[in-house]
């Protein structure tokens, strides 16, 4: 009988402890949920990261736009530097055409699918490049992006499936929405790489300077003090 009473009290006590723990757990979970909600609200109110997706221009077309200051450089020097850069081997194959003091050209960005160490091209994004020069500064923008999917040809090489691209602004429909979103992100990333290379090339005035190879250390055996 004694044992039964002790057992009953113990059970009630343990149940109380469990109930208390459960309450505290629920409270902490509620705290976590409200914390997450607050974080989500903060994220939603924060400005969109421009490096993840390209902004739209006033025509409703995706655009990558940048103004670069080059104090001390004349307009002519900047034009020469740009021409030199686009003639160099390491630059994209773009032939610049001057039109009303604006330089234009057509190029393409290769979009790769990557997983672990493997990669393969899934398509190309063609674009129109605009370059504009003034004393001590220049600006450039890429726009009129259109996507051309690649497919493997009979020799196992990836080649364009068509010659006319699909504008990136076009809505892909539900079936291809995820794929299309990845193309948009990849385009933004490749446009940034293009911009970085162009700015580097313009700084050098020629092609991108590759870092010099590290000299191999020489170990002499002629030293007698060993």
């Amino acid at each position, binding site marked *: 009988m004694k044992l039964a009473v002790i057992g009953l009290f113990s059970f009630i006590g343990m149940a109380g402890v469990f109930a208390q723990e459960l309450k505290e757990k629920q409270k902490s979970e509620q705290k976590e949920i409200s914390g997450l909600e607050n974080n989500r609200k903060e994220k939603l109110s924060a400005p969109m990261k421009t490096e993840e997706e390209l902004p739209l221009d006033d025509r409703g077309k995706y655009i990558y736009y940048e103004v670069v200051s080059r104090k001390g450089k004349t307009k002519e020097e900047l034009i020469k530097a740009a021409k030199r850069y686009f003639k160099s081997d390491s630059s994209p194959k773009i032939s610049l055409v001057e039109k009303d003091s604006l330089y234009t050209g057509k190029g393409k960005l290769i979009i790769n699918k990557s997983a672990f*160490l493997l990669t393969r091209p899934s398509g190309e994004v063609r674009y129109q490049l605009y370059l504009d020069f003034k004393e001590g500064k220049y600006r450039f923008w890429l726009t009129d992006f259109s996507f051309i999917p690649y497919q493997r*040809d*009979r020799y*196992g090489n990836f080649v364009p499936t068509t*010659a006319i691209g699909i504008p990136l602004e076009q809505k892909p429909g539900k079936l291809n929405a995820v794929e299309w979103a990845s193309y948009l992100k990849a385009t933004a990333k490749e446009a940034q790489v293009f911009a970085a290379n162009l700015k580097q090339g313009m700084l050098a005035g020629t092609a991108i300077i590759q870092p010099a190879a590290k000299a191999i250390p020489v170990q002499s055996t002629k030293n007698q003090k060993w």
Partner: protein
Amino acid sequence: MKLKSIFTTASLSFASFSYAQEAPLQISGSVDTYYKYDFSKQPNIGTSFGSDQNSISLGMIDLALKKTTGKASFVGELSFGPRGQYQSLINGDGTDDNSFHIQNLYAAYAFTDKFTVTAGYMGTFIGYEVISPTGNYNYSTSYLFTSGPFQNAGVKGSYAFSSKVSLMLGLFNDWNVYKDLNGVSHVGGQLTVSPVEGWTAYLNVLSGKSAGAVGTGTILDLTTAYQVTEKVKLGLNAADYTVTHDGGGYTGAALYAQNAFSTAFSLGLRGEYFNWKGTGEDSDEHITALTLSANVKSGGLTFIPEVRFDDGSTPMFVNKNLNPSKNASQFSLAVVYAF
């Protein structure tokens, strides 16, 4: 602790391997499967692949590797399954203890931006359609494709005169063989012309005497495609194959028209006329085939529902009662995934 050191070692190995890679190894491929129903309840239409009647059957799994290091590159493409073995490769069914799976195996070296030499076993340069289902719009294939070469082993040099004109010349084995029993016996060439953006035409020739053949076979082939608008694409394949000393051959033409209604849905029609040249006392026989296919795409996946009607000059098919018939028709649904 032990696990941590293993992980660190693996990470370092991974990092050093990544660093050592000049350009990443490309791995790509496809898988395909299909269902076909011939309305005469017999597997009537004898073009390549998609041959099984009222069965959910396999195409193939295709795996391709490509690596480029500087001016040198290689491609190795292996296929497993009916489409990629006994339906497209000699000895692919293993009946002679020899089971090959190779669709492409070659190395290339670009001596200059304009001149490249390639040697090995390559997909043929003849014709419009290919073995890989990802390279064709229609799932069933044309008579021109089935009758022409699939692969050519050999050595070829390609020279680009400009972005619009290039020429390939090469020495090749007999069609579709890994080794030539009567020596390197074929010579071939391809003139590529791209007059305007979106339009490319290939003029092909391949000539030679195959082992055991009665005469020299020469195939002349025109393959061209034109992207008329963003949505509309036209293609044409016309070919003539003649074997001397009354060895037969064929003549044919296929017209391809496709319209993309959206990025996910398109329709394509193939119309083909094909003539088998008679030998000896036998007269020519011809066939007209019409194939309507849809392509529904979602990412790497493509569904290809298709109907096909073939009409022969002679009773070359059978009907439901197994009586000879000039006509055959079929429905198929294929699923192709490219990666």
